[in-house]
């Protein structure tokens, strides 16, 4: 075999390997979804969604976990969006090249790499103990807000960066002030990108388990929370607690709950991709 042929052969073999590995990734995704659907599909019905958790696996439902997840997300949205978008606007539109803004930048990129369980310890030290909020929905949502803040900030900045300069200059030329320009030009035209980032960050928050375990989310909550100071459970927490039990019935219930969680995650990601495509087309 001469050199040329050998190189061609290596080249082709690598191509086959590339196809195989790419397919392997997709295949594993398929195996994961298939197995979970097969294990848990029998549990998916109205009773499962509307029943309280139970010590008997065949009667256990995810009602309190779903309500807990909704409450938690609602509060997280309330805290994280104004602060995250505000910070993004500040960094992109106001911050001058200074020591402070470069510290801000390094800091945000570092925060994005902090493991989520460390945010849990932060929440435990500050919200649960120092402010005395205990293992409440309030502590959980404040902790999650801090966790997704870097994602929202980065997404906001990217979206604002994509707004054409000409639009802003046109606004200034009409005599608009800086804030008027931001409010009437920058925010509306970056809205699609910001929204995409927010949805993606929420889909991340919905699946988070580790920090919530640390700030006191419960494995077993037999009632629906009534105030932000009540204890709560969330869907991933319910899945974790069922997964770690020895009875086979709970593994089936866990698979059922996973189907619901994956549905929510995939739908949110789908919506985010849809908004991104629509927004990118509009910008062009």
């Amino acid at each position, binding site marked *: 075999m001469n050199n040329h042929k050998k190189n061609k052969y290596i080249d082709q073999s*690598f191509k086959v390997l590339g196809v195989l590995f790419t397919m392997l*990734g997709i295949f594993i995704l398929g195996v994961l979804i298939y197995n979970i659907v097969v294990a848990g599909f029998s549990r998916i019905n109205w009773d499962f969604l509307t029943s309280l958790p139970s010590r008997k696996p065949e009667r256990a439902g995810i009602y309190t976990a779903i309500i807990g997840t909704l409450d938690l997300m609602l509060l997280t949205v309330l805290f994280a969006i104004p602060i995250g978008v505000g910070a993004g606007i*500040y960094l992109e539109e106001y911050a001058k090249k200074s020591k402070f803004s470069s510290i801000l930048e390094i800091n945000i990129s570092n925060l994005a790499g902090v493991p989520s369980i*460390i945010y849990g*310890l932060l929440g435990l*030290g500050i919200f649960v103990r120092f402010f005395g909020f205990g293992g409440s929905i309030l502590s959980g949502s404040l902790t999650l807000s801090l966790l997704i803040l870097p994602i929202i900030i980065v997404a906001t900045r990217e979206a604002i960066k994509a707004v054409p300069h000409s639009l802003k200059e046109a606004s200034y030329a009409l005599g608009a002030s800086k804030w008027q320009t931001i409010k009437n030009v920058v925010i509306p035209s970056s809205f699609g990108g910001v929204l995409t980032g927010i949805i993606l960050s929420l889909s991340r928050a919905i699946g988070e388990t*580790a920090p919530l375990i*640390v700030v006191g989310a419960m494995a077993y909550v037999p009632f629906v929370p009534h105030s932000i100071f009540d204890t709560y459970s969330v869907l991933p927490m319910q899945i974790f607690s069922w997964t770690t039990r020895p009875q086979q019935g709970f593994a089936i219930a866990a698979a059922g709950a996973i189907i619901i969680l994956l549905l929510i995650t995939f739908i949110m990601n789908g919506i985010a991709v849809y908004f991104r495509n629509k927004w990118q087309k509009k910008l062009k």
Partner: protein
Amino acid sequence: MKVKEKIIEFILKFCASITILTTVGIIAVLLFESIAFFKSVSIFEFLTDTQWTPLYSEKHFGILALVSGTFLTAAIAIAVALPIGLTIAIYLNMYAPTSFRKTLKPFLEILAAIPTVVYGFFALTIVTPFLQSIYPDLETFNSLSAGIVMGIMIIPFISSLSEDALYAVPKSLKLASFGMGATRFQTAFKVMIPAASSGIIVSIILAISRAIGETMIVAIAAGQQPQLTLNPTVPVQTITSYIVQVSMGDAPQGSIEYKTIFAAGLTLFIFTFILNSFSFYIKKKYQEKYE
């Protein structure tokens, strides 16, 4: 009018400052409780003891037993994710047709969007039984299964970020190499990877940092036995799954068990901080190379 503008700027600046407060808060909380911890346990014992048994009556506080579990599972994950992720990145960039690339990338990224608790369930109920059918001596809780599944989870980190880095290499380099008669394989390994090396290294470091801090997969599938071992078939405990174990029980505030999770958390934070800073440094240093 001028005043209103100033007030708005101030509010926005405050929003941005919350991120600094977050970092200060993390460091303050970790240090505060860790200092209290190190008043009862010497740093020397913490760093050199080979056993970690704060929840037993005979207490040992050797973080090495948790660190070894952490690095063992992370190493298995990287061993899975690095070759697969990098091959996929090169394949998508050099071989795959554009339309194929555009469809496949989002599909692979779904792997990163799946909640980690789902991966934990997958590892324990599907991957471990499968591995046991090949190797019957594998215990129910083990670092092999947890590590493999964690590797699957971080494939898209490496493949996507590395592909972005390869994509950023100027086309002229690639075409020049083709013009010299090089195959795609030769171009990939002799031209593209060296040119994109900083971006690829960053993606690998971020993947390692992610694997070290990953919690739910190891908490569910790797077990709860802190031990200094390199054997992937037996249960281990990582720093993160120890924190989960203590949090699931009710360690009273001020007790030594309560303080241990902050000392363990501080150790984890230091590891990931070093890795993240290193990747940030590489990113900044080599950023302008082709701009």
